[in-house]
C-alpha cells in the first residue's frame, strides 16, 4: 500500500492530496443527502395546511437551540486551532483544543438529549405531526453525524495521537485537517437546521 502516491504531498497539477479530494467529494454527497431532506422539508411545508408547521414549530425550545448553536460554532473554532497548533508543532495545545472540541460536541449531545426527552414527556413524538416528523428525522440524522465525528475526534485525542506524533507528524496534521473539514460541515448543517426548524 505504501507505494500509492500523493497520500500526503500534493500532486502538482491538481494541487491536492488524495484524502483532501476524497473528503470534499464525500462532503458533496453529504450535501446531497441533507439536500434531499431539506427539499423534502420545503415540499412538505408547502403541502401542509396553513399554519401547521408554524404551530408545531413554536413548541421547540429556542434558547436551548441557540446555546447549541454557540457550542458548535465554538467547537469549529477550536477545531481549527488544534490543527493550527499541530502545524506550529505545539502538541500540548493541540490536545487541549481538540479536548475542548470534544467537550463541546458532547455538551451538544447532552442538550439535545434534554430537548428530546422534554418533548417525549409532553407526549410529542415524530408521529405527532409532519413537522415533528421532519424535525426528529433531520436533527436525528445530524446527531448521528455528530456522534460519528466525535468517535473520530476521540480516536485522534487518545494515545494514538501521541504515537502518530512521534512517527509521522505530517500524517497526523493531514488527518486532523480532513477530520476538521467534516466537523465544519456538520456544524454548517446545524447552522441551516437552526433557522428552518426553530425560527421560521
Amino acid at each position, binding site marked *: *500500500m*505504501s*507505494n*500509492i*502516491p*500523493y497520500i500526503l504531498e500534493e*500532486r502538482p497539477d*491538481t494541487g*491536492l*492530496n*488524495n*484524502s483532501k*479530494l*476524497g473528503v470534499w*467529494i*464525500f462532503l*458533496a*454527497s*453529504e450535501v*446531497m*443527502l*441533507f*439536500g*434531499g*431532506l431539506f*427539499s*423534502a422539508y420545503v*415540499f*412538505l411545508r408547502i*403541502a*401542509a*395546511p396553513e399554519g*401547521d408547521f408554524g404551530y408545531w414549530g413554536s413548541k421547540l425550545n429556542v434558547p436551548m437551540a441557540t446555546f447549541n448553536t454557540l457550542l458548535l460554532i465554538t467547537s469549529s473554532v477550536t477545531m481549527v486551532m488544534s490543527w493550527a497548533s499541530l502545524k506550529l508543532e505545539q502538541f500540548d495545545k493541540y490536545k487541549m483544543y481538540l479536548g475542548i472540541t470534544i467537550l463541546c460536541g458532547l455538551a451538544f449531545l447532552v442538550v439535545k438529549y434534554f430537548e428530546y426527552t422534554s418533548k417525549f414527556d409532553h407526549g410529542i*413524538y*415524530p*408521529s*405527532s*405531526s*409532519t413537522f*415533528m*416528523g*421532519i424535525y*426528529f*428525522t433531520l436533527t436525528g*440524522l445530524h446527531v448521528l453525524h455528530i456522534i460519528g465525528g466525535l468517535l473520530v475526534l476521540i480516536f485522534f485525542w487518545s494515545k494514538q495521537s501521541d504515537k502518530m506524533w512521534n512517527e*509521522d507528524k505530517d*500524517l497526523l496534521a493531514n488527518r486532523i485537517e480532513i477530520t476538521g473539514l467534516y466537523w465544519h460541515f456538520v456544524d454548517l448543517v446545524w447552522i441551516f437546521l437552526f433557522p428552518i426548524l426553530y425560527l421560521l
Partner: protein
Amino acid sequence: MSNDHHHEENFIQKYVFSVDHKIIGLQYGITSLLFLLFGFMLMMLMRYQIAYPETVIPYFGEWLFAGSGGVMLPENYNTLGAMHGTIMIFLGVVPLAVGAFGNYLVPLQIGAPDMAFPKLNAASYWSYFVGGVVMMASFFTPEGAARSGWTSYPPLSIFESGQTMWLLGMVFLITSSLLGSMNIIVTIVQLRAPGLTWFRLPFFIWAQLVTSFLLILAFPPLESAAILQLMDRLVGTSFFLPSGLVYAGSPVEAYGSGSPLLWQHLFWFLAHPEVYVLILPAIGIVGEIIANNTRKPLWGYKSLVYAIGFLGFMSFIVWAHHMFLTGMGQSMSAFFQLTTMIISIPSVVVLTAFFISLWGGSIRFNTPMLFALSFLPMFGIGGLTGLPLGVAASDIFLHDTYYVIGHFHYVVAPGTIFALFAGIYYWFPKVTGKRMSETLGKLHFWPSLLFMNGVFMPMFIQGLAGLSRRMYDGGQQYAHASDVLHWNEFMTISAFCLGAAQIPFIVNLIISLAGQKSDDRNPWKSTTIEWSAPSPPLPHVNFDSSVEVNHGPYEYSVPGQDEDYCPQTSP
C-alpha cells in the same frame, strides 16, 4: 504505515479481506454475476406464470409455493417482480459495471499501483455484500421479501410487508456505491501516471468518471428518501401519507398531510441518473473494444467525452418524465419533456460516433467485438423507443404498459449486459493470462442475440395494444388485450432458451480457467496502458516497470509506423 509489502499474506488476507483492487474487482465480479443469474431465475418464474397463469409450476412449484400447492399467487408475483428489478439493478448490473470493471480496470488503465483508498475499497465491497445478504435474507423472513416494486411507491409500500428489510438493504448498497465511486473519482484525478493528461485518458475512464459523479450525487437523495420511508413504516410519521387515506377498508391512523409525490420526486432524482449509471460504463467498454477491433482511432473522441459529460449533467434534470401521469401540472410536464428531448442528443452523438468509427476499419469479428457491435443496434432500439415515452402526450397512452418494459430492457439487457459480456471476453486474458474459447463464445453470442429479441420485441406489440405491465396473470383479465396474449408463450419460451444460451458462457469460463497460460501480455494488440502490465498484473503494484505515457489512447494504424498500433507507453 508499514513498509513491509513483501510479507507473506495468508489465504484469508489474500483472497477474502484483500485490499488489492484486482481481488476486490474479482470479488465484485463473481458476486454480481451470481446475482444476475439469480435475478434471471426470478424472471423465468414470472415468465412461466405469465404464459401459463395459475397452473402448477413444474419441478419447483411445490417447493417454492408450498402454501398454494405449487401455484404462484398474486402476492408471490409481486415479490418476484420487485426483487427481480432490485437485484438486477442494484446487486447485478451496477456492481458489475462499476464495482468489478471500474475497480479492476481504472487503476490499470491509468497506470496506478492501486486505488487511492484500498481499505475504503474493501469496505465498499463488504458493504455491498452485507446489503446483498440482507436482500436475500428478506426472502426467508415471515413477512417475505418486498413486493411494492423496485420503485417502492407509497402509500402502498408503507403498508405492504417485507419493505423494511428492502430499505435496510438499500442503505448498505447505497453506502457501498458512495464509497466505491468516491474512490474511483480520487483515483482518476490523482493517480494518473506521468504524462497521462486528461485527453490521453481512454474513453472507458471518462465513462467511469462521469458514472461515479452520478452515483455520488444521485444516490444520497434516495438514502434520504429511504430514511423517510423507514420513519413512516417504523415510527409512525406520515411523510408519504396524505390526509384521509383509506387502506383495506378502514381509515389510516396517521397525522396525514404528507405527499406520496414527494417519494416519487426523491426516488426518480436518483433513479434517472441511475439509468445513465447503467449505460455509461457499457458505452465505455464498447468504445474500447470498437477502437481495438477496427484498428482505427475512436472517431470523435473529444466529442464523445463532452457528450457523456453533458449527458451526466442533463440526467439530473429529466427525472419527472417518469411522472407525467401524476398530475403534477402541465408546465412541469412541458419542462421535463423538453429536457428529455435534449438529453437524447448526446446519446445520439455517442452512437453516431461509434458507427462512424466502424467506417473503413478492418474489423476483426471476434467474440468481444460481436457483443460490442450488437450493442449498437440494441441500444439504438432501446433509445429510440424511449422518445415516445418522453413526450407527455404519447406517454399517457404508453405508461405502465409492456412497451415501457420492452424499452428499458432493450437498453439494459441486450444493451448494457451485452457490453459487459463483451468486456468479460475482452479483458479475460488480462485477468487470467489465458484466452477464452472463440467457438463457445460465438455459441453464446448468436443464440443470446436471437432470444433476447424474442423476449423483448413482442413487448412493444403488446404494449402498443395497451397491455398493462402489472398483471400477475399476464393480462388474461383484460378483454381488449386478447389479440396480443398469444405472444406470451413465445416470449416465455424465448426466455428459457435465453437462459440455456448462457450455458456455453459458464462452460467457457470454467474451461478457459483450466487452460494454458500464455506469456503474451497484449493478445489483442491494444494501445491502452493495462496491456503493458503482466497478465495477471502483479499483486499490489500492477506494473513491473515504471509507467510513462507518451501517446494518446487510440493511436491505431498511424501512417508510417511498422505496426498498426502504438501503445501509450511506448517512447
